[in-house]
């Protein structure tokens, strides 16, 4: 049966308010139990019934009353006065005070506290413990980190993802290349066949113009440098054929000016020295320097009237070609040359020798340049693939940092203007970019003054030595003239004999020096003798004066006995000279091969350290006379 309650409402009556009313309860339906359904059920015995016996609890929430808090300042008003005294009344307060002061306890306390207070006040006056003691001192920045450099990028040929931005295609291999400082799209390059070419990077990889072959150099152009001019189109080039040519790139058909590097100043091409590097400083537009194959650096003046005056001075000191030449950006009078196994620092005023030099390395030095930020730091590359960073103020015997960049020889080196990034190129075409640590490319506090002092000191030392050397030479000349005509012609000695003689002389002098040193040690304190930073002082300690003195003798006599005697005679004088030298700040001991033009056989070689001409008996053609060791470019 269904129990239903139906409630209906008309739609129109929707929404009407309901009015409910009570009515009595009414039974809707009454269903009696049906015993017939009992069979569907089962009696359950026992029945589980849960009972819990706990106290009744109910949940109740409480919210505490909120208390309002406010911050307020208190103005201290006079208080503490006893009840009977009115603080406003001056008389009463004074009276009260006087009464207190009379109290004995008060007096005792005051005495005691007074003593205590006085002690502290005196303490304060004695010393101000909070005084700023170290106000004005700047913390010296200690470079704790050792110098280091890290490779940023290595560009190898043949690696696909490293494509150069532009490839310049000259007609003949390029030997040197320079960007125009005024226009960064223009480059000038010297070719292997002696021509000069210039490129505009906006116009592609082929040269815009080439110089005519007939008027160009006859040998590879080893140096090409832009000049400072209003038009920004002038440059000059130098080559091993002994010429320096000036060009205007707008008209490369002929050079605007030529100069033959003949240091005998006769302008003869035959005597000319081959140029290997060029150096030009925009701040000194009329002067420039050329580094030659023969190891001589020639300083020239462009504005001189006659060609013979163009060559102002020569600096000889290297045994082999000068591969790099650069002026110190901070001290234009000081320049760096790199060649043979050393790097040398020169001062323009001292023409006879360099003022400072590095030790003799085991491999050739191929390139070098000054740092643009620190006056006493320079970089050199070696043919064993090492890049050296030298800090001459800090250490002169060794480079501050020596990095093996690659296994093949490093050929060139360029430093970015900020002084931190250096790029070096190897013989196999790998370019490595290195970033050097900040210690080597940030200017230290006193560095400029210290560097100035160092250069001046070394220049002065060299001048003193030069002066003494000249004196000795004059003395020798006077003595030799007094002795009349010495035997001018000697029997022609075979090269082997000459070589043996050279060897003998050499070792004799070494023994002599060692003995002298041993003696000197026993007589003088050690402090005077050693050279503070010299080159190669370990194995070949020759005094420069002696070397040259013997040279001057050889020039006159070309006799070994005289040479040996000369050495001996110099020895006893050395003691006094040593005292003299002690005045000079640093005793530099270095190798000085006596520079004979040749060992007394070929008279045509004469004065000029020119090339070895076709006389086979000529052993020494240039400064370093022990031929087997030289990187010889002079073989006829």
């Amino acid at each position, binding site marked *: 049966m269904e129990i239903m309650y139906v409630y209906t409402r008309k739609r129109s009556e929707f929404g009407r308010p309901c009015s409910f009313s009570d009515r009595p309860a009414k039974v809707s339906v009454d269903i009696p139990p049906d015993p017939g359904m009992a069979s569907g059920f089962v009696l359950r015995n026992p029945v589980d019934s849960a009972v819990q016996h706990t106290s009744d609890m109910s949940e109740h929430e409480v919210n505490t009353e909120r208390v309002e808090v406010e911050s307020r300042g208190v103005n201290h008003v006079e208080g*503490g006065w006893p009840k009977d005294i009115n603080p406003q009344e001056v008389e009463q307060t004074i009276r009260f005070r006087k009464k207190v002061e009379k109290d004995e306890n008060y007096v005792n306390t005051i005495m005691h506290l007074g003593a205590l*207070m006085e002690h502290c006040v005196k303490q304060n006056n004695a010393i101000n413990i909070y005084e700023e003691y170290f106000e004005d001192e700047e913390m010296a920045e200690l470079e704790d980190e050792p110098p280091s450099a890290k490779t940023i990028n290595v560009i190898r040929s043949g690696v696909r993802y490293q494509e150069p931005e532009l490839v310049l295609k000259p007609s003949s291999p390029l030997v040197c290349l320079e960007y125009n400082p005024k226009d960064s799209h223009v480059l000038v390059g010297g070719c292997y066949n002696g021509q000069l070419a210039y490129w505009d990077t906006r116009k592609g990889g082929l040269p815009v113009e080439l110089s005519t072959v007939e008027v160009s150099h006859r040998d590879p152009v080893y140096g090409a440098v832009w000049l400072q001019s209003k038009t920004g189109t002038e440059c000059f080039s130098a080559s091993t054929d002994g010429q320096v040519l000036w060009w205007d790139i707008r008209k490369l058909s002929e050079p605007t000016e030529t100069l033959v590097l003949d240091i005998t100043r006769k302008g003869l091409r035959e005597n000319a020295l081959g140029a290997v590097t060029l150096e030009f400083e925009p701040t000194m537009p009329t002067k420039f320097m050329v580094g030659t194959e023969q190891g001589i650096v020639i300083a020239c003046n462009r504005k001189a009237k006659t060609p013979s005056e163009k060559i102002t001075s020569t600096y000889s000191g290297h045994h082999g070609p000068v591969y790099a030449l650069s002026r110190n950006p901070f001290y234009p009078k000081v320049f760096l040359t790199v060649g043979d196994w050393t790097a040398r620092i020169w001062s323009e005023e001292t023409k006879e020798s360099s003022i400072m030099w590095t030790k003799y390395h085991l491999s050739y030095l191929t390139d070098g340049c000054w740092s643009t930020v620190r006056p006493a730091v320079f970089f050199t590359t070696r043919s064993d693939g090492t890049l050296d960073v030298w800090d001459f103020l800090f250490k002169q015997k060794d480079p501050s940092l020596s990095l093996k960049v690659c296994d093949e020889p490093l050929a060139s080196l360029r430093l970015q203007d900020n002084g931190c990034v250096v790029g070096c190129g190897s013989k196999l075409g790998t370019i490595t970019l290195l970033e050097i640590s900040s210690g080597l490319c940030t200017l230290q506090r006193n560095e400029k003054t210290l560097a100035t002092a160092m250069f001046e000191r070394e220049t002065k030392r060299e001048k003193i030595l030069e002066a003494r050397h000249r004196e000795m030479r004059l003395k020798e000349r006077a003595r030799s003239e007094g002795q009349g005509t010495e035997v001018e012609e000697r029997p022609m000695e075979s090269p082997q004999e000459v070589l043996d003689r050279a060897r003998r002389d050499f070792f004799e002098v070494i023994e002599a020096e060692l003995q002298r040193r041993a003696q000197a040690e026993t007589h003088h304190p050690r402090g005077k003798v050693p050279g503070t930073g010299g080159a190669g002082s370990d194995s070949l300690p020759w005094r420069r004066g002696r070397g040259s003195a013997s040279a001057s003798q050889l020039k006159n006599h070309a006799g070994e006995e005289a040479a040996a005697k000369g050495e001996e005679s110099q020895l006893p004088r050395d003691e006094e000279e040593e005292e003299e030298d002690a005045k000079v700040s640093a005793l530099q001991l270095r190798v000085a091969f006596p520079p004979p033009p040749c060992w007394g056989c070929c008279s045509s070689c004469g004065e000029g350290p020119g090339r070895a001409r076709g006389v086979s008996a000529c052993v020494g053609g240039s400064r370093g006379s022990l031929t087997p060791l030289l990187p010889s470019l002079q073989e006829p």
Partner: protein
Amino acid sequence: MMEETLKRIQAHKGVIGTVVINAEGIPIRTTLDNSTSVQYAGLLHQLTMKARSTVRDIDPQNDLTFLRIRSKKHEIMVAPVLKAANPF
């Protein structure tokens, strides 16, 4: 005698003013003007009490002997009366 002591302290180099305060915080003798003295009296009194109670809390046998407040401009030096007896 007591006057001399106070005068001597005031005469030292660097001393700007002296205030003697009693137990109730009333400035008894002062070289500064009244309002300043009252201000110092009220403030320092309470601070000294606090300092003393701090010291005593840490070690009951201990007592505050001197209080120095060093500020940018001056230093305030307070010598409180010792209440506790020195342990022998």
